């Protein structure tokens, strides 16, 4: 993913089209960066919700094709244009998925062979869960106290009660939409953190990240 903070682009050949894309999003570079991140997030979710693998790579591919079109086509609405290209990328990705054999497509004999080590699988899953739980604790301690309390308060209720969330938003002086945005981003941040932590612990179980 491109680093918007660094003044040095990862590849000099890519900088010009990317800059052109940012200018197309907004004349103000900071606002353009925010719009880019927002659009990228939408594209990733678009591919996830269309059951595509490697959604982030597909989102980057979409942006790459949008950049190629800048200057050649009249792009008035970048988001709508990107969505159109994303639909094409989705079609291509689905064709690739179709050529992959799902586990559910295995024969009974092949399935039983894959499932033969049931006890080992259970122990492995248990270890993974414990690892994830420890990582979750670590990642929660990394975020600011206010955000941590907000996140736990939002999820500290059985069932997603709309009335409870509205009350919580009101107590915090937020709209329901603003609360939702904040919690979604915190959850995304924690998921990434836990994923990286868990992956690191698989390599080195003693490593505490």
């Amino acid at each position, binding site marked *: 993913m491109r680093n918007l903070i660094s003044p040095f682009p990862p590849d000099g050949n890519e900088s010009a089209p990317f800059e052109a894309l940012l200018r197309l999003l907004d004349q103000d570079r900071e606002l353009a960066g925010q719009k880019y991140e*927002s659009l990228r997030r*939408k594209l990733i*979710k*678009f591919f*996830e*919700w269309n*059951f*595509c*693998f490697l*959604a982030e790579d597909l989102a980057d591919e979409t942006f790459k094709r949008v950049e190629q079109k800048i200057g050649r086509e009249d792009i008035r609405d970048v*988001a*709508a244009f*990107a*969505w159109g290209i994303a639909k094409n990328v989705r079609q291509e990705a689905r064709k690739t998925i179709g050529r992959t054999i799902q586990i559910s497509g295995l024969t009974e004999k092949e399935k039983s062979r894959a499932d033969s080590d049931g006890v080992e699988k259970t122990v492995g899953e248990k270890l*993974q*869960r414990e690892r*994830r*739980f420890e*990582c*979750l*604790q670590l990642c*929660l*301690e990394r975020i600011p*106290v*206010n955000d*941590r*309390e*907000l996140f*736990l*308060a939002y*999820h*500290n209720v*059985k*069932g*997603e009660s*709309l009335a409870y969330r509205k009350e919580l938003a009101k*107590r*915090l*002086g937020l709209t329901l*939409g603003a609360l*939702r*945005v904040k*919690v*979604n981003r915190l*959850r995304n941040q*924690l*998921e990434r953190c*836990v*994923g990286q932590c868990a992956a690191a612990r698989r390599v080195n179980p003693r490593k505490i990240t």
Partner: protein
Amino acid sequence: MTDEAQHRPNLSRYLLGQVSPQEREQIEGLYFRDDELFEELVSAENDLIDRYIRGDLGETEKEHFEAHFLSTPERVQRVEFARSLASAAFAGNMPASTRTNLRPAISRLFVRLAAAALLASLIGLAWMVVANRRLHHQLEEAQQGQIKAQEETEELRRKITDLQQPAGASGQTGNLPAPGSAILSLVLAPDLVRSNAQQVTVQLSPMISRVVLLLRCSNDNFSPYEAVLETVEGSQVWQKKNLISMPEGNEGTVVSVDIPANVLKRGDYVARLLGAAIGQKPTELGVYSFRVTHVTEK
């Protein structure tokens, strides 16, 4: 603002892959334009995962969830994250540092606001004390100034009283001008009032530029007044109109007549005081005679 109750069933169906291609196209077009709808979808996805973990999905929903939603490694990881979160939150197994009493941010904000208000009150109180002391000091200074002004007024009154010495009965001469003074003033009673009718003599020196005659008058109902200066032969040498009276202590009034010294040659003079009631001709209220000599004379 989207209608959450209306959109929710469609959002769950979209996430589980249960919508038609047309519905999918419509929803996707909407959330690419509407940030709020997009966040609502993300929230609905999180809720769907949490409900699956808790076992709150119906059979059909659960089948679709496991068949479609868990089709990518990323989503499997998301479900595992939700499982960790659920077990931690509901089992109370969070570490001590995260097991905090949940105080709404607004309560902490209220505490901060109250502390700021208290600090502002203390600062205001200190300012008021300082300002009060400053005002008290200013008041004392003003009072002292007033007392001093009253004393100076009294002193001036005493000086005026000293200057107003009767000169008619004993034939005393008018006050000689103080050294360096340019004005000579004297009080004259009417000739008819003077007991011995002795002449009042005014000695003029070159230093005197004006002579102020304070003509005593028993009646102050004729303001303004008029003064006419004549020689004993009856020749008018000077006149002044629109004169006003002023109180003379507790003994009636005087009319001040300011005469240029160069008008008064050596000789005898008569000053006539005239007054007129409203709509009436002026009448003579008093006659005041005096003699003028110059200090160079013997």
